[in-house]
């Protein structure tokens, strides 16, 4: 199973072995990663599963769709490497990907 690394705002690293086909958000929520709230459960409606993707990995992900783009633009502190983790599926080539969790989620 691909290994996904979540880095909490305080710097703590959490490694999760996630099956292919679920989303990065599901991997986080299923393992209780603090700071990934995912209130809407993956419907791209709340922007509370926001992560910063390590730059080396960012380009390996499928591009953001328009809905995700719009959600992120007014999310809390968006950056060039921001993604909503509910919109990215775990695949074999994401083994080792590093995702930083923002200090806040949503719009505030």
């Amino acid at each position: 199973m691909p290994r996904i690394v979540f880095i909490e705002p305080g710097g703590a690293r959490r490694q999760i072995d996630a099956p292919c086909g679920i989303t990065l958000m599901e991997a986080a929520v299923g393992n209780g990663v603090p700071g990934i709230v995912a209130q809407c459960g993956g419907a791209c409606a709340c922007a509370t599963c926001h992560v910063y993707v390590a730059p080396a990995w960012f380009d390996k992900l499928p591009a953001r769709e328009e809905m995700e783009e719009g959600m992120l633009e007014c999310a809390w502190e968006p950056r060039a490497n921001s993604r909503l983790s509910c919109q990215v599926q775990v695949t074999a080539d994401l083994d080792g990907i590093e995702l930083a969790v923002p200090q806040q989620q949503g719009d505030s």
Partner: protein
Amino acid sequence: MISTVIIIGGGQAGAQAVDTLRREGFAGRLVLISDEAELPYQRPPLSKKYLSGEVPAERLLLKHRAFYDEHRIELRLNTRVARLHLESKQIELADGEKLAYDRMILCLGGGPRRLSCPGADLRGIHYLRGLADADSMRAALTDRARVVIIGGGYIGLETAATCRKMGCEVAVLEMADRVMNRVVAPLVSRYFADEHRAHGITLSCDTRVTQLEGNATVEAVICADGRRFAADLVIVGVGAMASTALASDAGLKCDNGIVVDEHCRTSDAAIFAAGDCTNQPSTRYGRRVRLESVDNAFEQSKAAALNLLDKPFIHDRVPWFWSDQFDSKLLIVGLSQDYDRQVLRGDPATRSFSVCYLKERELIAVETVNHSKDYMAARKLIADRALMDLDKLPDINTPLKEAV
């Protein structure tokens, strides 16, 4: 000293309550009771990707079993609570077992409003609330099945879109003059009605159902105007009611929901309530509201857990809602009431637009269709009570956050 907390109800609010209580340091006995067989799961996909079979049940779980083990949460699934004994601070289960509590949170949710017309008890009439309902519905949705849906609200329209995508013949019958009439502007109703019709759904407004016809199993839906819709199955989505029986039988104050104060406390100081089952005074709206949404279940439950632990907290988040129908996403933020002006941004013909509701220039609610940027901006602007610039507002090319 609080040694035992009981949560009744295993929905979104119940799962959030145990999460917040443990995160906030409650180390005592924590019991979560649910009358459903499954661990707490997400309900919104039941009318969408779960019904269609795209997402399996295990992906709906709000937390995995390991979470409950790790946090020492006593799960009592498939367990019905018969009554509450407020005086002795005990609850009585259906099998007679009694459990004592120091504090309790009622997360009883709601149940679908049922039809009462002749034929309403025939087989083949489905309501949607839980996983089991979606399972039995799916089993009946064979290819080309004739599905008649009574009610053009969120549930009715979402299941209509799903059934149509699964290859069924679908008719939607709505009593009012437009779909989702209680929650969106007329032109948003029109947009979604057009979407459904374009996908081959027969959508009929101003249509009152008077009878369900059939021999043991439903075969047709009869309307007041005499029309008859042949049906292999009927899905009813005509609203929901708060589940309050347990609370009102025990003497807790109820009025269109369990009456709670701004701290989510019921009329009994040891008992809190959260989610669809509550009726709470809103500081933002200056009146009592009963909301049915994931967001409300989440926020109220968090607040109830904090207040239960004597960490005073009043949530003042702007409510939000969403609905997915075919490839259109409706995102709503705020409650569209008491407004004095409605402003359209963009053109529905482009399939991406917003309707803004203002009160003395203050933005109080926004409905967006396929326009997440306006939605996210609106969440912040409404929370901040922003005053809008009426000249800039109608231009969808001006970002909403710059139209202040």
